[in-house]
């Protein structure tokens, strides 16, 4: 039995930063990379199923990206994932979330897992579409924003709870294999043990090329993307204003503003 978890190394920003000269992204020197928070929950959910199972369950993590992504994959290995796969080819540069979905679907077809987890979204680009586009390429059932999961390895179905607007929940029975996008709070992700980190450092990360998954350069990258970034910029500031004066003066003005908003 196999669970495949798709993960992404995301970029976090400091408060001051510079754009690249093409103005399509932030200068890489200002980015701090880490495992996407949603994916941390996906890996934990897979680990919980593995640890609760009587039979053998293999957890495989997959990511699309250059060498630096290995660091995030090792984090997953340190938490107990059995294998890590990194897919990369320079031709993949500029892929949008739909093209990434195509790449991940190709890996999944090859790996043939019983269940696929992805994060609801990534904290940097927030498209919320990679997991769903992966399911579309696979033509598998899918469910988004999963906040609870009841699934026994080998079962033909899983019972899931989805978060809806207005505090509502949606309980759904889904046929397996399926792609589920996992929501924050579904579990409490563990910290990797020191032993786990040391063992992960020695584990190999499988590097997969385009040819290995049967895709061509034309099927990935900026040219195959359905959307492309035109420019990235800081929008003009809104109506924020500094309230000047002594603390009492500031408090008085703040109360006035609140009363104005309340129409008093």
């Amino acid at each position, binding site marked *: 039995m196999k669970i495949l978890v798709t993960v992404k190394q995301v970029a976090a920003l*400091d408060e*001051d930063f*510079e754009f690249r000269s093409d103005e399509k992204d932030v200068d*890489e*020197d*200002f980015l*701090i990379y880490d495992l996407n928070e949603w994916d941390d929950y996906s890996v934990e959910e897979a680990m919980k199923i593995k640890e609760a199972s009587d039979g053998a369950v293999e957890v495989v993590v997959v990511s699309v990206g250059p060498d630096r992504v290995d660091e995030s994959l090792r984090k997953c290995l340190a938490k107990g994932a059995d294998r890590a796969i990194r897919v990369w080819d320079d031709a993949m540069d500029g892929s949008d979330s739909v093209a990434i979905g195509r790449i991940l679907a190709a890996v999944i077809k090859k790996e043939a897992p019983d269940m696929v987890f992805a994060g609801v979204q990534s904290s940097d680009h927030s498209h919320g579409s990679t997991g769903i586009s992966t399911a579309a390429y696979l033509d598998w059932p899918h469910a988004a924003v999963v906040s609870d999961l009841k699934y026994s390895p080998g079962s033909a179905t899983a019972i899931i709870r989805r978060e809806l607007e207005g505090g509502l929940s949606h309980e759904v029975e889904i046929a397996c294999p399926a792609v589920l996008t996992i929501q924050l709070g579904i579990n409490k992700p*563990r*910290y*990797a*043990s*020191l*032993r*786990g*980190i*040391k063992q992960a*450092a020695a584990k190999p990360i499988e590097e997969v090329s385009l040819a290995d998954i049967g895709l061509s350069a034309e099927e990935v990258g900026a040219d195959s993307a359905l959307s492309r970034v035109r420019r990235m910029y800081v929008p003009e500031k809104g109506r924020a204003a500094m309230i*000047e*004066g*002594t*603390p*009492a*003066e500031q408090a*008085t003005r703040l109360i006035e503003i609140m009363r104005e908003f309340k129409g008093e």
Partner: protein
Amino acid sequence: MAVPVQAGDLVRIVLQHRDPFAAAAVYNVATAGQRQALEEVIVGERRNALMFARWEHTPGGVLQAMAGSGDQAVKMRLDKNPGTPGQALSHLYSSEKQATLIGLIAQHAHTPANVLEAIAAFESDLKILKAVSSNPAASVRAIRLLVTRMPGQFDSAVATNPATPADVLEQIYARGNAFIRAAIVAHASCPLSVLDRACGEHEINVLRQVARDQRVDAEVLATLAGHADVAIRRGVAANPAAPDALIGMLAKDDAVSVRRTVAARNFLTPATVMCLSQDADHWVRQWLGRYPLLPKIMLRQLAQDSEMIVRRAVARNPASSAQLLKKLAADSEAWVRSAVAYQVNATPSLLRWLAEDTEVDVLCGVASHPRTPQHILQRLTQSPDADVRRGVILNRSAKRRVLWPLLQDPYYLHRMLLIGNPALSEKDRWGLRDDPDKAVRFAVFKWFSDRFAQGEKIH
């Protein structure tokens, strides 16, 4: 690898492994020649330079070395970093042309007085000058310069700046609005002459500050205690100089916030205590429950209060007896039992009993209590809850054999906290030198570096 016994060994190890975080940690104990090599490791790559310029733990010496950078982004981060030393800021100001960056230097707490004086004397940008007027590091000279150069322009900031001298406060009191006058009365250097004038004011904001001033005489306080404004009466209730009779009267005030303030005072007469113990507001009774001079009979009464926060207050009170604590340790609310677990008077037997609790808040208290037996602490190091394990780490009585397994704790912050624990040996700390977490490695090398800087010998 053996524990280094002198600074030179430590720096050589760092240069061999070329870890930027370890390099930053040992920079202060390196020789001039070694520093150059360390700088290559620390800021050789721009992304590292940007990171260290912003990092709150970057040692002052490293930030000082970075002040010579020509990279505007690095300079901006240095200007913003609260740890940047005065010498570095002085150097940055000497070559700075951008108003935004000068503004950051003008508001930095470490900017030397002479730099702030130069800014106050020669800059013309109002935002920059306002930053100086708000900076507690500004000298009296800098503040006088600003008040003289642009009278009235920065009165709000000057009135609240702790560095402002009494004569300047007096000067701006005469022209300030009610808010500025109130801020001046609240100022630690407010002269008596200004306070006397303020006592005769009718402005509520000013009187609120007058009511809190210990120098105000009893007659004025008595008048203010009858004022219609609740915040003024609350100010009197908080004033340590208010006579007991006045406090007794305020203990019956209509406003709960006034009675709560009375209940939070350091000293209460028996009559006031009695009055407050019957108060309908449970926050009043909660404050009373924490009063360290509360009679035992009153503690027992409040220990049976229907409100959990009142019972918790009694459980926190250092005057509570062992017998009372034993009763509260069996309370149905975990938050009350937790207060007992943190109580300084909790006995080892009571802590042993509380160690069987299942609530994490209670176990955290037991884990951090210096009277908890070592074998219980040892058991709590195995807790799946990180907060409980952290309690053991922070327990100043925990012995080395208890702490030792926690050096392998999965949570990096725990390993980092252990580095400074005096119960551990140098060898234990040195064992974390190749920790996977950069902050832990930094803390290890910084600990050894600080010891060498102080001339201590490592055994």
